């Protein structure tokens, strides 16, 4: 009798659980699983929306890898962007967080000021930067001209354009700074005190305590940074249009063009799957590398 009642309770809870989860389940099926499968199917077809999808097997992938130089260019551009902006943001974020972790009067104000830019984003910021980087009227080059230096065409010179966008991305470093700051505040004071007793200097403490204790946070931020780095789109779309000479044609932008400008939905779907595998591979490599350099408290390193 008693046993039966208990059973009933847990069955009831299971039913309730599925009821509560049901919107999520519907969402997963309709907005995730369904589209994923359909996208995979489309990637093997030729589809321009006006005619029904035509099955062409692996042709999209073959064309992409052997006959489409822009595919490779956009992929390399994106890899360049990720490879440069993720480390740069990590170093800047950590250093800034250490700086903001000092107890100086008015530090709260500085934290707010550095965090602020990461909050505003989107088209407005892209436009703002387009003006700052304008070769003739822009803030930076006007300033350089005053000093008698002729500034580069930040966005109009193909050797500078990608790098300019990487630099511009640093504008939002406050977001990761805040996360590192929270990580820093979780480092036990006693570690630093013990190091002081042992006669360790500032640099030594930073290298041997701060960095190891921050590695879990760095790890998280690097993964998020890589994932979002592969999505870079807006800056190119608003500021450069992919130019000059396709030097800022990023993968996500090229994919968008293929789908919504050229109406090649099959080809664009195939590109999306390539992107999926590349991000997956990068994430796995980072995750695998984690055990070598990420330090988790409570684990014995030996």
């Amino acid at each position: 009798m008693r046993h039966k009642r208990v059973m009933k309770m847990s069955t009831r809870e299971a039913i309730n659980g599925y009821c509560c989860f049901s919107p999520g389940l519907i969402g997963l099926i309709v907005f995730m699983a369904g589209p994923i499968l359909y996208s995979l199917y489309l990637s093997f077809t030729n589809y321009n929306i006006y005619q029904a999808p035509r099955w062409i097997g692996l042709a999209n992938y073959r064309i992409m890898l052997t006959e489409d130089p822009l595919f490779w260019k956009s992929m390399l551009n994106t890899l360049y962007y990720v490879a440069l902006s993720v480390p740069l943001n990590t170093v800047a974020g950590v250093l800034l967080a250490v700086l903001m972790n000092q107890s100086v009067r008015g530090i709260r104000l500085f934290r707010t000021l550095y965090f602020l830019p990461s909050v505003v984003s989107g088209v407005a910021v892209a436009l703002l930067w387009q003006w700052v980087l304008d070769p003739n009227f822009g803030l930076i080059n006007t300033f350089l001209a005053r000093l008698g230096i002729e500034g580069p065409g930040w966005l109009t010179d193909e050797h500078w354009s990608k790098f300019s966008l990487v630099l511009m991305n640093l504008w939002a470093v406050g977001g990761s700074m805040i996360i590192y700051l929270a990580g820093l505040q979780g480092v036990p004071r006693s570690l630093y005190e013990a190091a002081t007793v042992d006669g360790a200097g500032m640099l030594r403490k930073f290298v041997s305590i701060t960095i190891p204790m921050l590695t879990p946070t760095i790890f998280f931020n690097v993964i998020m940074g890589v994932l979002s780095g592969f999505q870079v789109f807006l800056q190119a779309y608003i500021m450069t249009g992919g130019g000059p000479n396709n030097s800022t044609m990023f993968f996500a932008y090229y994919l968008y063009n293929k789908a919504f400008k050229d109406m090649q939905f099959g080809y664009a779907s195939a590109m999306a799957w390539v992107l999926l595998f590349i991000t997956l591979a990068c994430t796995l490599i980072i995750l695998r590398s984690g055990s070598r350099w990420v330090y988790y408290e409570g684990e014995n390193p030996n």
Partner: protein
Amino acid sequence: MRYTVNTVWITLLSVIGALLSSSFIAYAFAKLKWPGRNIWFVVLLGTMMLPPQVTMIPLFLFFKQLGWIDTYLPLTVPYFFGSAFYIFLMRQFFMTIPKELSEAAKIDGSTEFYIWWRIFIPLSKPALATLAIFTFMMAWNDFLGPLIYLNDPDQFTLALGLRSFQQQYGTRWNVMMAASLIVMLPTLVMFFSFQKYFIEGVTLTGVKG
């Protein structure tokens, strides 16, 4: 002006949708035991890794079939079915609410819905505020979504409006900067009024994630 009204509507609906659905689903993950719960949770988290480009094209075709192009529906309806990141955030918060509270209510004969609505929601105001702010920022600044789904200038959001403004006024930087500032203003006001929740939200996801 018209752009502002459109953007406010889309943002408002998105925030309401995200708050209701994500907290409701999170309740199932945090406080109820049901078979398959852990597997579904992993699946849900896995979707965060998925590049949005994979689902972008099929979703566009799907919404086009439904005749939803040039409406707010493609931009708001998905929020009502929860998104992984917000569900995760709410679940983490719900886990900290003591079990005794919901058990006491259950003994009194309350339904799960009642417990969620009358106990968990009122207790989670800080987390809900964080979530609302995140959704606000996402929806307000979203560019790619409106770009794909809205073609009719009457339906444009501010982000899209700014883009067409750019095409129109090109290098008249003074005009452009004024327009940009107006678009940024609400997010700045939000930031200064709810700074605490911004910072808490970001650190919660970063350190515990």
